[in-house]
């Protein structure tokens, strides 16, 4: 499959069918007390569900063994939602956390879900789950009143048991209440959720629930599933995007013992009972390709993105730019560049497909099991009822397993062709080639200050990154934000952890620093003075306090930077300290302090893990990661040239998570990464006086920037 042919997944508006009827579900679940629920969706989930039957979006089951099972179409790819969702459910239903089981990402068992992206698990699905839990608790109290013959108002639910508060030995367990029953409840009213003062589990730190499986090797990922008679496939790939197959000779591979060759249109694959022997056989396939027509490379891409941008879309505006120009005494104009970035999850795209007759089951490394199922239904021509996607543990996604499920289609087609279960596990080289990269992008900002040092105008144009995080939030009377997305990319692009926001924050917060320097003000003070949003101010102040910030105009020579941003409803501020080797241009980040306001943090420990992970991952796009390419060829195909952050690159990380239990929950998986590029760029400027305008800030670029001001 050419990467340009990836079926488009709309990340804002899904139009899919709900697969399961409640009757089918009850049968599948084998009885117990089952609560269906539909409530509490935030606008993101509502947008996804437009046009869907919507009588339930969450359900849970209480079994005769007292265990509570949460069924969710969300998946766990390391971000910790399996722990936080279990906390939310256990708290509302009043059962121990250990008695909650999570069934995730199985399209035949779980309610429809648009995918695990956009930090929606806790803020979007969580409220529906809590409501279902509260409803389940209500049903259990009703049943208990009947069974132990005590009026409901005298009953207390606690730790999976209901008892009479006047006579505590009159008690019944949840398991006993579910024993021998099949009760399905469709909750209609919005039940009363616990208030923060009643929380027993929500808001308390818990370690991951899947650690033991992961440290013992028991955790199974898609590539670890074994079926009798399965084959491993390796697929013939073009050398460049846009290259087309001229001719192919598979005769030498066909002669190898145990090798099966499949040729089906564009799909040429060799299969073997051992993956390494399939790979060896693929090297015997002779193929010629017509070269790619693409003329672009990683140097010329930026001009291309601007010249072919088409008409812009105004994303935000206020006042009048011309008025602002008249007010301005100092103009600051700058262009910022950002190259393509790979997702580089440690687990490559993997699928195991078993096609039997007109039925298909696919174990898939994916963030979007339901959209993947739709793609399979279309590719195979099977009834939707006969296609099942099962999501085992997923070895990282970061957006890269959201829009690309091509390996599922490949495995399913090959299983259909051979009549055997087939695993497709992309090599690292395939992973780099077929990734839907974070787009290269250009941002130009024209801004100005009054002679008193107040921002007068802000004219912001972003090319190719998208508008997430593009509108500024400073107090600027005359402003305009325009997004241009017209230029085609030489390969697929897609969402990469906080899509667009990393690039937009790098540009905005660099420009704000430039303006602070022109105004001869401390960069933290300049921000605080020109911000209105209380949450923005609060995170900046929290980060400054933790860091021990001492004001000074930049560049101070200390190597300190500050940045602030917002994503998925959450606010983050970071302060970084860097050391720059002026001779080599090498940057070592020594310390990062991050303060985050995400409202109610359901599992503060999990949230902090995400903050640390974001900061560490962010160092890659900031300092080393850049996809080099020429004429449709991706030149970085492994980790020898595409450098992820190593242990030695990781600074001391300190986190401040604001305690806001009475606030709604906002996203936690993405925010802390968005300002890493900006905060390091600002710290490099503070250390050296050189302003880096392109990500990543490689030693060569840092050296050049220092030389330019010398």
């Amino acid at each position: 499959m050419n990467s340009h042919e990836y079926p488009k997944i709309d990340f804002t508006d899904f139009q899919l069918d709900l697969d399961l009827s409640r009757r089918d579900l009850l049968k599948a679940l084998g009885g117990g007390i089952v609560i269906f629920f539909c409530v509490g969706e935030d606008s993101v989930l509502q947008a996804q569900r437009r046009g869907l039957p919507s009588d339930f979006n969450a359900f849970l089951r209480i079994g005769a063994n007292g265990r509570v099972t949460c069924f969710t179409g969300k998946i766990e790819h390391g971000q910790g939602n399996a722990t936080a969702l279990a906390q939310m459910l256990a708290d509302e239903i009043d059962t121990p956390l250990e008695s909650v089981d999570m069934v995730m990402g199985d399209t035949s068992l779980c309610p429809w879900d648009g995918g695990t992206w956009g930090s929606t698990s806790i803020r979007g699905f969580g409220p529906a789950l809590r409501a279902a839990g509260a409803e389940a608790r209500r049903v259990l109290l009703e049943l208990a009143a009947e069974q132990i013959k005590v009026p409901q108002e005298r009953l207390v639910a606690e730790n999976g048991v209901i008892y009479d508060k006047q006579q505590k030995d009159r008690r019944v367990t949840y398991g006993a209440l579910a024993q021998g029953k099949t009760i399905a409840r469709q909750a209609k009213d919005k039940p009363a959720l616990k208030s923060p003062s009643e929380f027993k589990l929500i808001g308390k730190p818990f370690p991951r629930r899947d650690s033991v499986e992961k440290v013992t090797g028991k955790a199974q990922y898609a590539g670890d599933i074994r079926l009798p008679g399965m084959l491993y496939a390796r697929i013939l790939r073009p050398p460049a995007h846009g290259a087309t197959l001229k001719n192919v000779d598979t005769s030498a591979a066909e002669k190898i013992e145990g090798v099966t060759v499949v040729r089906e249109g564009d799909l040429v694959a060799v299969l073997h009972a051992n993956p390494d022997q399939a790979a060896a056989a693929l090297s015997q396939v002779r193929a010629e390709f017509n070269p790619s027509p693409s003329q672009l490379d990683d140097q010329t891409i930026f001009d291309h993105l601007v010249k072919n941008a088409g008409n812009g879309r105004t994303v935000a505006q206020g006042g009048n730019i011309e008025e602002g120009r008249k007010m301005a005494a100092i103009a600051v104009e700058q262009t910022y560049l950002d190259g393509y970035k790979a997702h580089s999850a440690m687990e490559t795209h993997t699928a195991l497909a078993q096609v039997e007759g007109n039925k298909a089951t696919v174990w898939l490394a994916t963030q979007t099991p339901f959209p993947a199922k739709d793609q399979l239904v279309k590719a195979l021509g099977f009834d939707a009822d006969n296609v099942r996607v099962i999501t085992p543990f997923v070895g990282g996604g970061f957006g890269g397993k959201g829009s690309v499920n091509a390996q599922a289609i490949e495995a399913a087609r090959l299983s259909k062709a051979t009549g055997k279960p087939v695993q497709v596990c992309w090599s690292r080289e395939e992973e780099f080639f077929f990734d839907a990269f974070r787009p290269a992008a250009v941002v130009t900002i024209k801004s100005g200050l009054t002679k008193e040092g107040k921002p007068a105008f802000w004219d912001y144009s972003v090319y190719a990154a998208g508008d997430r995080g593009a509108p500024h939030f400073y107090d600027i009377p005359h402003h305009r934000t325009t997004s241009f997305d017209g230029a085609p990319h030489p390969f697929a692009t897609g969402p990469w952890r906080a899509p667009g926001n990393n690039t937009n924050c790098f540009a905005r917060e660099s420009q704000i620093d430039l303006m602070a320097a022109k105004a001869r003000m401390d960069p933290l003070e300049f921000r605080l003075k020109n911000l209105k949003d209380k949450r923005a101010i609060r995170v900046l102040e929290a980060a400054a306090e933790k860091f021990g910030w001492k004001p000074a105009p930049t560049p101070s020579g200390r190597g300190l930077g500050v940045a602030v941003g917002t994503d998925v409803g959450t606010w983050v501020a970071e302060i970084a300290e860097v050391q720059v080797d002026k001779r080599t241009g090498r940057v070592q980040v020594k310390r990062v302090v991050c303060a985050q306001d995400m409202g109610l943090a359901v599992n503060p420990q999990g949230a902090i893990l995400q903050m640390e992970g974001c900061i560490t991952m962010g160092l890659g796009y900031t300092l080393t990661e850049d996809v080099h390419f020429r004429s449709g060829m991706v030149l970085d195909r492994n980790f020898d040239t595409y450098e992820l952050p190593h242990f030695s690159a990781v600074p001391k990380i300190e986190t401040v998570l604001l305690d806001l239990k009475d606030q709604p929950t906002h996203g936690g998986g993405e925010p802390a990464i968005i300002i890493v590029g900006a905060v390091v760029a600002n710290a490099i400027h503070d250390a050296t006086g050189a302003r880096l305008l392109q990500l990543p800030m490689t030693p060569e670029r840092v050296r050049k920037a220092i030389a330019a001001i010398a």
Partner: protein
Amino acid sequence: MAETIAFTLNDKPVSVTTDGQRPLLWVLRTDLGLTGPKPGCGQAHCGACTVLVDNKAVRSCVYPVRNANGRQVRTIEGLAKNGELHPLQKAFVEHDALQCGFCTPGMILTAYSLLQENPQPTREEIIQGMDKNLCRCGAHTRIIDAIQSAATAMKGGKA
């Protein structure tokens, strides 16, 4: 050419008859059914496939199975003893030193090998010893903490 290769795998004798050039990783994962070692890059850049051969970390994706002949091979599945987690495994759990978990088996076995050579490493020595193992989720600081705390729990004794 098929040859018979015999070694000790997680304390049990095994033998395979296969092409001796095949990478140990794939013999472990397919022929021997141990999927703890993970394929990450295929070129020894990432460390997800790390296993122990005679208690030393090796990158099994580029290690010919022939070289294991007569040796002791240990995968993550063979680290816990009698259901009791190894101090490194315990420390990774206690420190939440993982997210997606895909790099974890390789991290733990690389750390094991490091502690064999240097039972009481400094933080800097841990960073140097682990520097060629990649983690995309960004669990690095917790992994360093976990290794330090496991070293203390093992009281400088060998694993």
